[in-house]
């Protein structure tokens, strides 16, 4: 068997070493290779195919930064069959993992030296967390970092502890949190992310990175344009149904682009050139 060529559809084993409950429906899973360390290298914004054999396989963005070589993390919202099974896992459970897939964020090109504005809604923080922590690691390579993050309620903020204890305390990093509705014990901002972004009124010399529900992306992009941002300054990351992860199974295309291979990260002006079918 050893002389057979490498086959991307055949996964590796991953061991779940830690399960963190983030919100009522989001858990973050720490995954390592059986021999320890990460299963493979990746760049921020790339994804991996996770599977419980017999249940299914699906694409998830890698939440941890590649600067972390001890483990990978995946923040996963319970929304379907496979994710429900994943949520039942306990530490020590093995899963299968293959990847990395997708283009990732241009952290070594377009983003370098720039002021970065991260805008996330709900579970949309998952792919951005990888970039944010990467940028924090190579802090001197990037300019000022602003993070606007909102969710339905305080309890739905993913990675809340890391945000409070690390991001908020870092120099040159500003964190703006918001929740959709007033809530007891919350003295921060209340309101939807797109409106909050407009209220905050950022300088247009920044590069913006948005991820969240499609409706939030749409309105946030419109808000940024009102502020004077050009679509070439705004990046987002997409999600469609995938099976292979390498542009062959034929289902995650938007026009001629495959989200798994040509994405998931798109610059908003590039996305504009694609048909509106996502």
């Amino acid at each position, binding site marked *: *068997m050893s002389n*057979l*060529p*490498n*086959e*991307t*559809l*055949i*996964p*590796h*084993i991953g061991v779940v070493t830690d399960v963190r409950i983030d919100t009522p429906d989001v858990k973050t899973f720490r995954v390592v290779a059986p021999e320890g360390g990460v299963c493979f290298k990746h760049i921020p914004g790339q994804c991996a195919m996770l599977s419980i*054999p*017999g*249940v*299914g*396989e699906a694409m998830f963005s890698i939440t941890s930064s590649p600067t972390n070589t001890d483990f990978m993390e995946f923040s996963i919202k319970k*929304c*379907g*069959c496979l*994710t429900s099974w994943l949520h039942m896992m*306990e530490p*020590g*459970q*093995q*899963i*299968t993992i293959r990847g990395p897939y997708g283009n990732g964020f241009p952290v070594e090109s377009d983003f370098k030296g720039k002021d970065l504005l991260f805008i996330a809604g709900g579970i949309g923080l998952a792919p951005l967390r990888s970039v944010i922590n990467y940028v924090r690691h190579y802090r001197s390579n990037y300019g000022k970092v602003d993070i606007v993050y909102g969710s339905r309620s305080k309890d739905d903020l993913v990675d809340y502890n890391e945000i409070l204890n690390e991001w908020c305390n870092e120099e040159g990093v500003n964190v703006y949190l918001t929740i959709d509705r007033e809530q007891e014990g919350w003295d921060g901002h209340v309101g939807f992310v797109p409106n909050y972004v407009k209220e905050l009124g950022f300088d247009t010399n920044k590069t913006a990175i948005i991820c969240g529900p499609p409706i939030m992306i749409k309105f946030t992009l419109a808000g940024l344009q009102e502020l004077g941002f050009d679509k070439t300054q705004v990046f987002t990351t997409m*999600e*469609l*149904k995938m*099976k*292979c992860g*390498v*542009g*062959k*199974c*034929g*289902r*995650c*295309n*938007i*026009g*001629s682009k495959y989200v798994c291979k040509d994405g998931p990260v798109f610059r908003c002006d590039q996305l504009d*050139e*694609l*048909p509106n*079918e*996502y």
Partner: protein
Amino acid sequence: MYQIEKARLGELFARIAASGELILPVENNGTSQYGTWTPEVEVRLDRLNTVRSAKDCFFPQTENLMGFQMKGKEISIIDQRKPCEPFTVFGVRACDAASFGILDRVFLSEPVDTYYQSRRLAGTIVTLACGEPEETCFCSVFGIDAVKPGGDVSCWLTEDTLFWKSLTEKGDALTEKVKDLLTDGDEAALKAYQEKISAIHEKLPLKNLSLEGFNGDATEALFDRPEWAELSEACIGCGTCTFVCPTCQCYDIRDFDTGHGIQRFRCWDSCMYSDFTKMAGGNPRLTQKERFRQRFMHKLVYYPANNDGIYSCVGCGRCVAKCPISMNIVKVIKTLGVKNHE
């Protein structure tokens, strides 16, 4: 170039089959299907096309990918790939032979699909020129010459003679195995036959179908055309067109609990199916109009955009003949194209 009497084809097939599986069109209750040659099967070289295309030989409808054993919290992965034994496909029409190049661009591009690759490397393709094309044929529209059908070996079958011409190293190797059954080919006779069938191909009603307006840059011009609604109106959302198509290559990956472990397999999937793009969170192609549009946009625009302008259709006419409601790529091209309005 060689030839053999038509009456001795059985000997030729037996010889080829002696050194590996021989797959060719055989009779199956009134239909032709690619099947394994045995002395008992009824070979059907007279029917133009098999119902299923020759892609099955390299990209079967279902294939096992890998197995898993689950023990407590532990998983072991079983690589089930086996080296593919050499085989020959005989009687492949020019359209199907051209489809392999289209599939290659998908499966052999990085990262290579090793399941497909191993079959592709092991298979020798013997094509057969089309002496009696059907009205549904339009391969010439895609630059395919059914009179000179390509493959590793090209064959021409007249009333009494099979002409045999090797085109590649694989073809030479196969020729070597059957050479003592063959005699030197009568070039003039072959030329005369080719001219005769060329004249028939000239009469095909779809030969002047124009592809003007379809190319990798046509997404914007075609995507929102109102005609998609009418074209897709009667589509029943079955997978017939995609499954008989020699270039459709979409697949699904699924797991099956065998009772002794988990078998992961892949199977053909169809963009015409409602669950093709359905996620827990929604579906970007909600109605049959979007699914229908995807199929034809993929063949005529998206695939060319990613593959040097090559279309993902070979004009075999299977979808034309088989669609339950008689809606097909020809009607799409005629409706949305630039030059097809009579």
